[in-house]
């Protein structure tokens, strides 16, 4: 017994020594691993983990640093976000990636600001995340853009004149996107009915009926995956005759699965279309297939979610910034980020110099191939 304790102690004492022997730079992963957005958060993390797996080190100021990802689960909820953010801050990270979902990012923003740590928003599209601050950057497009793209698509391509919009009550992301969609759609001369459903709703049949009653041509629901699958499932059972339109959150294999074998027309806007970069696709799939847990986190199969691609790009953008900064000091990284550019899988990434938003002018539109359990690429759509 004594021997065992002695060995244990020795081992324990060795661990920090190992750690000291190596240069480590910590990157915070601020993502939801539970809650409504848990599934999306996990997929986004997969991209970062894959990136970390293929590129675990970075050259900073002539020295090689090992990159360590530090995770904090923000629970998809704005009230848990500050302490999760604080956890990253006290772990001493140099830069933070995340989050999936805008509300949590907005809530955590002041914590990062106070600690002087820069954050790179991966798929949080609400303008408020970066507006009025100098530490929150973002590599994806924004809601005013996405909303307009979707409104154009719905009006011009789908030929809808009446749109029914459904958002989750109290969700910044949904409500914001619907707001911009409505603005653009009415500007085009269409009519919009927008409603909200309370958190935790599972019966969407009434809302779907509402859309039928109003003879809507499109049912726009930029909601979390959990709700989206239920909407798709119930819409299929009701045999609705309008198209279902979603935003980047609906770009999930779960939505495809739910729609397969039905005759629904589901279109979503997203950041990346599988096949856009075959080399990345095959590498990522191979990595996921080799790791059962990764596969589970991706929802059980190896279909590539756009958010994973964004996570992957965010990781490399962070590495670029670290290289440019030449130091692991968060303040230096923050400075360096303004001029960091990176040729990512999802497109070229550069930040405009007011809010630190990505300069992007295209979104991908894809639709569900209900016969083959897959996505069909439809169009690259600008404003």
């Amino acid at each position, binding site marked *: 017994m004594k021997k065992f304790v002695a060995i*244990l102690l020795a081992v324990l004492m060795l661990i920090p020594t190992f750690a000291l022997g190596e240069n480590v730079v910590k990157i915070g992963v601020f993502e939801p691993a539970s809650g409504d957005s848990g599934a999306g958060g996990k997929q986004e993390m997969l991209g970062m983990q894959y990136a970390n797996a293929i590129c675990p080190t970075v050259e900073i100021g002539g020295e090689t640093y090992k990159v360590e990802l530090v995770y904090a689960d923000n629970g998809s909820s704005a009230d848990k976000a500050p302490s999760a953010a604080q956890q990253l801050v*006290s772990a001493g990270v140099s830069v933070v990636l995340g989050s999936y979902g805008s509300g949590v990012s*907005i809530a955590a923003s002041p914590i990062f600001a*106070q600690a002087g740590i820069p954050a790179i928003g991966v798929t949080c599209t609400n303008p*408020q995340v970066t507006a009025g601050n100098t530490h929150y950057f973002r590599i994806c497009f924004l809601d005013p853009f996405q909303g307009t793209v979707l409104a154009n698509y719905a009006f011009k391509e789908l030929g809808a004149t009446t749109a029914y919009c459904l958002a989750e009550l109290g969700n*910044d992301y949904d*409500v914001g996107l619907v707001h911009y969609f409505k603005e653009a759609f009415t500007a085009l001369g269409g009519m919009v009915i927008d409603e909200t459903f309370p958190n935790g709703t599972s019966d969407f049949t009434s809302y779907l009926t509402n859309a039928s009653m109003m003879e809507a041509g499109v049912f726009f629901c930029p909601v979390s995956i959990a709700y989206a699958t239920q909407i798709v499932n119930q819409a299929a059972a009701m045999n609705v005759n309008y198209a279902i339109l979603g935003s980047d959150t609906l770009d999930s294999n779960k939505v495809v699965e739910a729609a397969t074998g039905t005759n629904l027309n589901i279109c979503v806007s997203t950041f990346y279309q599988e096949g856009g970069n075959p080399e990345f696709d095959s590498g990522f799939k191979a990595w996921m297939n080799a790791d059962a847990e990764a596969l589970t986190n991706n929802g059980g199969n190896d279909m590539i979610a756009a958010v994973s691609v964004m996570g992957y790009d965010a990781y490399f953008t962070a590495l670029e910034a670290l290289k440019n900064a030449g130091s692991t000091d968060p303040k230096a990284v923050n400075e360096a980020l303004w001029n960091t550019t990176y040729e990512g899988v999802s497109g070229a990434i550069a930040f405009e110099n007011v809010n630190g938003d990505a300069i992007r002018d295209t979104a991908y539109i894809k639709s569900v191939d209900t016969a083959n359990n897959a996505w069909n690429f439809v169009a690259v759509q600008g404003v």
Partner: protein
Amino acid sequence: MTKNINNMQRKKLDPAVLISALIIAAVYVAVFVLEQIMPPTSMLFTVLKKAAVYALVAVSMNLLNGFTGLFSLGQAGFMLIGAYAYGIFTIPVAQRAAVYQYYNGGLVQFSLPVIPALVLAGLAAAAFAFLIGLPVLRLKSDYLAIATLGFAEIVRSIFQWDKLGMLTNGSNMLRLFPTFNDFNIKNAEGEVVVYLSTLMPFVIAGVCIALIVMLLHSSYGRSFMAIRDDEISAEAMGINLAKHKQLAFCISSFFAGVGGAMLAMYSNSVQAKSFTSAMTYEILLIVVIGGIGSVTGSCISSFLFVACSEWWLRFLDQKQMIGNFEVPLLRNGFRLVVFSVIIMVVVLFFRQGIMGTKELPDLFRKKLPKKTGKEGEAK
């Protein structure tokens, strides 16, 4: 606690009270000193701030559940009202356009200083409590619980209603209002000279809790406890049940409202979505762990609860390696499982909680009044 009043009466100063006062003072000094010497990013301060807020809310719930015997589960609803009242009236005018981006800058176009806004937050919650109290306080125990729980849900919907967006910002969060960090004293260059961001929540919560303790030690407090012990008998003693229940309900809600406003300050933003019944349950569990009917217990357990859930037990959520050995079971969510088990053990086997009905000074007395095994029964 009860003995405490009598002794104060007869001997002027009770050593036990003196020791307690010194301990509390020492805590405040320690918080102040730690804040100056430790890095402000330390997890300790996050925990302390949140715990101070929860302590106030837990004590306010205890006032109702533990001391007046009214089993209310509306705490999150009143916190929400307080948080919104605070947020709506303190966002700087210059920032309103950014916050109310979908509502043209919102309806309110002025902003109040922090302390008056905190009081306003309390008053707003108390006003709602008054209105809802008129009908629901006639209900008994579990019916009251479920009615107040329902009330909290209704409030949550109303505050998110798009048509009230000009005031509440609808589904979007309120933010950019003064937070605890704005208590820090800065010099001309914007560098912090004196850190007060942790001390101030302690001071505010401390003042509020002190007021509650003084209330409990007054004739009104005795009447509340009489109602808890036996409603019929209390009424026969000339205590107007409706009035006193309403009073306890409004006072408790007032402090819950202030607590809600402080929670907003802590979390930098307010969103109706986060004030769920789960939050009420959390606070209720804090009260139970601390001891139903003990202010000290509620305070201590808030700190333990927050520290465990935000800090000490966090490691349970992540894979841990000891050498090459991966500790089994540890992954996301394990912390909450451990937590639930602890809570069930307390509920089932240590029903008195940490303190029972004892208070801090009672710990320094040799002879305690014999307490019965029962905690305050909700009738």
